[in-house]
């Protein structure tokens, strides 16, 4: 591949974005900036759920409505399924949610068990982390590990220890929300290191460029972790652009903003490049209203359509 500073023809995957909390306008803009596929991890919703039924409906919407909504904008939607670490602390519902997981883990487009791991490193979090690692092995899926905001360094090390203890292959585990303090250990131990470009609380753009300069592009993944908070759904394309401007080679950008996510989550057997470059005819008819998704490298929406959405 030739080196270029132009990322406008590149396509991207955002492998961590909570679209349930985002508007349809975000989908249009994502596609406009070259995002062809996204992964929506199961997480908490900003406030605790009080019944297992809420989880069931949430999982159903991830494999149902949200997948359809994304397709309307030419974006392929995947998801991960889990009881998240925060709500693992709610004994009223945790076991019932665990019973729901096998029902959803084998659905089409479910690419991992996650986000699992630690929030406060309580005994309850330990218990459900372990049980879900067992489930991941049983259904042969990759694992997406959420590392805590507080006490991150210890939480990250311990998460990897637990994965190893349970006999989960590091090559099938994505350690997310990594930073300068945790990157080296994650990469040295053979795990995938994902970085969430999230203003103020997680990673910044420029720091990310320096990390890629320092560690190269192997097993490094960039995502937005965009949700209901002050986050940026365009974090992946923006970071790619910044990398290009700061002299990171195009093939490295492609790896960290597209290929690595595909390799890591593709291990599920549920995510293939042809899903968006050449989807089965039945998907084209039913999900994309007969439109081919990618249409070469051209974004589905042009700025004129974008403007008309704003007005009407």
């Amino acid at each position, binding site marked *: 591949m030739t080196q270029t500073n132009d990322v406008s023809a590149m396509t991207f995957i955002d492998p961590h974005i909570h679209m349930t909390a985002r508007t349809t306008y975000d989908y249009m803009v994502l596609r406009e900036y070259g995002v062809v596929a996204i992964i929506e991890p199961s997480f908490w919703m900003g406030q605790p759920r009080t019944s297992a039924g809420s989880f069931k409906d949430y*999982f*159903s919407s991830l*494999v149902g409505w949200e997948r*359809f909504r994304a397709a309307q904008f030419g974006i392929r939607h995947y998801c991960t399924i889990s009881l998240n670490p925060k709500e693992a602390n709610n004994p009223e519902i945790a076991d019932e949610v665990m019973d729901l997981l096998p029902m959803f883990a084998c659905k*089409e487009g479910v690419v991992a068990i996650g986000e699992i791991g630690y929030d406060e490193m309580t005994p309850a979090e330990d218990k459900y982390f372990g049980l879900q690692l067992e489930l991941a092995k049983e259904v042969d899926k990759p694992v997406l590990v959420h590392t805590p905001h507080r006490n991150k360094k210890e939480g990250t090390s311990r998460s990897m220890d637990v994965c190893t203890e349970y006999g989960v292959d590091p090559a099938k585990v994505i350690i997310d929300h990594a930073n300068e303090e945790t990157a080296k250990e994650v990469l040295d131990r053979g795990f995938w290191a994902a970085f969430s470009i999230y203003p103020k609380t997680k990673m910044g753009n420029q720091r990310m460029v320096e990390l890629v300069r320092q560690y190269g592009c192997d097993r490094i993944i960039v995502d937005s972790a965009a949700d209901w908070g002050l986050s940026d759904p365009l974090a992946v394309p923006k970071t790619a652009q910044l990398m290009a401007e700061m002299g990171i080679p195009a093939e490295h950008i492609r790896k960290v903003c597209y290929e690595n996510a595909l390799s890591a989550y593709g291990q599920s057997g549920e995510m293939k490049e042809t899903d968006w470059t050449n989807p089965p005819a039945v998907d084209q008819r039913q999900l994309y209203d007969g439109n081919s998704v990618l249409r070469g490298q051209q974004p589905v929406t042009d700025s004129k359509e974008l403007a008309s959405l704003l007005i009407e």
Partner: protein
Amino acid sequence: MTSSTDILPANISLANISQANIPQAKALLYRWLQQQIPAERLAWLDNRLKQLAEKGAADRLLFTTFSSVPRYTTKADLSLTDADLREADSIRAGWLPNGWSLDQAGRTLLLLSLPDKAAESYQASIEKLFSAADVSEQIALYQSLPLLPHPHLFVARAAEGLRTSMTAVFNAIALNNPFPGDHFEQLAWNQMVLKAVFVESPLHLIQQLDRRANPELARMLSDYAHERWAAKREVTPELWRLIGPFLNDQFISDIERALNLPSKEQQLAAAIACAQSSLPAAQKLLSQHPAAKAEIADRQLDWDKFSQQYLAA
């Protein structure tokens, strides 16, 4: 409220037309799968279906098998001959699988292979699948409805399915599917047709469209046209197909307006609607469009020909 039985000819019983011959449907689906997928993949399905046919098979087996079908069948389209389609229609009137994919055929075969003697437990199993279905699973489930045993137990489910925001799921129920026409009460039927208009699904793909036309629906569609026109938007010419049989002093002005629109489709559709009515005012309007009138009289223009020529996707 009118039930669909009221408008059927007295000598046809509802049971005959709205119930599939299930063993034959299974055999046909199996034959199609056999023609297109390798034996070792079909063996996986055989094995799972055998386990599921046993009483008391675990829910987890049901869910994982139903979800895994595309991994073994692929999602390629079913390739069917005209003879296949005729056979399908003879097993279940209106069964039209020509837009189906292999995984949908496999999933339908699974639904027909579950123990079905006890109606309520059969219904419970199917409802469980609905309650956690992804997009493709919902489509497969809804388009299987006309083939399922105990169809009367799934009428509410079909009506519920129409409330979806996913057009593809809505279409799986509303289009190319005999279930709504056979089983819906008028209220559900009218809501379905009205929603099809709103989501811009082609009405001519709704089975029994003309048989189930009714004055209340005509009134709803006329109101809809007025709303659209007030907002300076267009309406589908297919509206006139459902208003034509019930033309009265009120609706005739809608037809007149359509006849005077610049669009040829609007003019032709409005002309056919006039020809459907014995109202003198309608005949008079039609006379003002002698070319269309002659085509209709020569049987060169009717709703089927109109749909083929102007609405084909």
